[in-house]
């Protein structure tokens, strides 16, 4: 049986690829394409009368397939369905890194899931607190309650918007310039940052529209998203390219972190690097850049 290492609450999550948990041919090696996280789906991708079968597949996939360093998240069915409790049991028993709460609308939803997760962790002898949570906001109410949702639990690592449902609620449709979701994306981002968690954008469904996809990813990056949900492996490369730091950013970050290590050992709090004044507040950002650079193959040092 594969025992996955303890999940990291904050790690690189540029790309989260959805996979139908019921399709053996898909889930057996989804990691080969190099996405940061895979999202095994028990919800929309699985027909109502195959929810049970999908859980059996999922359990054996989680316990026998070595996904390596790829994070494994499971999207469970909504709290308004009869499926979510058993979904949580199988996720925890199988050792999934995290659970994505579909259609989350309030902090209470997070608490409800968290209680069930904790119960399952106790039932299956899993360390309490191991299983991470993220929430999908799919309705205006979810967006309005974004901050309380983001701050509802220490297990929460991130929040994502689900475009299809949200656009329907808002009575709009996909717009090339993103104006349909601009406010929702912005509000969710602000809430996530205020709560100190990550924030992910929705899927882009037209696989033939490469130009539209690129524009959306560029906008995601400009707005401050950590990453994006994907529906096809061929989308991975572009996201990784767009989210990659520039060579100059990497060198600056490396210099900042190196200087910080040296200066703080010498007891200095504020110093300059390449003419810029640097203090401790710059360090997390610089470290994030280096981690990203490492994942992109642009940095091979040992500062992160």
């Amino acid at each position, binding site marked *: 049986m594969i025992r996955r290492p303890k999940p990291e609450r904050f790690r690189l999550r540029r790309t989260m690829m959805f996979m139908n948990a019921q399709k053996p041919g898909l889930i057996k090696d989804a990691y080969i394409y190099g996405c940061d996280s895979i999202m095994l789906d028990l919800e929309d991708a699985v027909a109502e009368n195959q929810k049970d079968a999908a859980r059996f597949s999922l*359990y054996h996939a989680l316990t026998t397939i070595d996904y390596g360093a790829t994070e494994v998240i499971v999207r469970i069915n909504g709290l308004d369905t009869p499926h979510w409790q058993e979904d949580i049991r199988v996720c925890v028993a199988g050792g999934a890194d995290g659970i994505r709460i579909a259609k989350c609308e309030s902090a209470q939803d997070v608490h409800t899931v968290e209680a069930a997760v904790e119960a399952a962790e106790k039932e299956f002898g899993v360390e309490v607190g191991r299983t991470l949570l993220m929430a999908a906001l799919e309705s205006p109410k979810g967006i309005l309650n974004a901050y309380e949702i983001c701050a509802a639990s220490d297990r929460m690592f991130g929040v994502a918007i689900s475009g299809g449902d949200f656009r329907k609620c808002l009575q709009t449709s996909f717009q090339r310039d993103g104006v349909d979701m601009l406010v929702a994306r912005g509000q969710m981002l602000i809430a996530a940052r205020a709560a100190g968690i990550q924030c992910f954008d929705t899927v882009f469904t037209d696989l033939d529209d490469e130009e539209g996809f690129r524009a959306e990813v560029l906008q995601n990056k400009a707005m401050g998203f950590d990453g994006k949900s994907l529906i096809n492996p061929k989308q991975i490369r572009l996201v990784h390219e767009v989210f990659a730091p520039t060579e100059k950013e990497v060198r600056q970050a490396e210099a900042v972190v190196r200087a910080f290590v040296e200066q703080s050992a010498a007891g200095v709090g504020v110093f300059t690097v390449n003419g810029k004044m640097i203090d401790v507040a710059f360090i997390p950002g610089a470290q994030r850049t280096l981690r990203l650079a490492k994942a992109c193959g642009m940095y091979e040092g040992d500062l992160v």
Partner: protein
Amino acid sequence: MEILKSAAAGTLESSDCMVTVEPGEGITLDLSSSVMNQYGRQIKAAVLETLERLDVKNCSVTVVDKGALECTLKARVECAVFRSSDASSANIPWGGAVR
């Protein structure tokens, strides 16, 4: 577990298998596979082992395999068995009889 009624799980897609269980006397296995010559014995062993773990004593099981990995094979057998007693939707013994 008792096989109370006929039940099936899986598909005939590539890399999957279709498992049907029916009430029977003892265990009988009808297996066909696209990889019979190389994996027939291993498939048979995996099916019987899974039934034994689920404590199924009487069952007629039909497996039409399209090159499923062992983890898929086990999942399909288990799902069919639990479905046959309408117990597939909740309180599955994950990590216990199902492992």
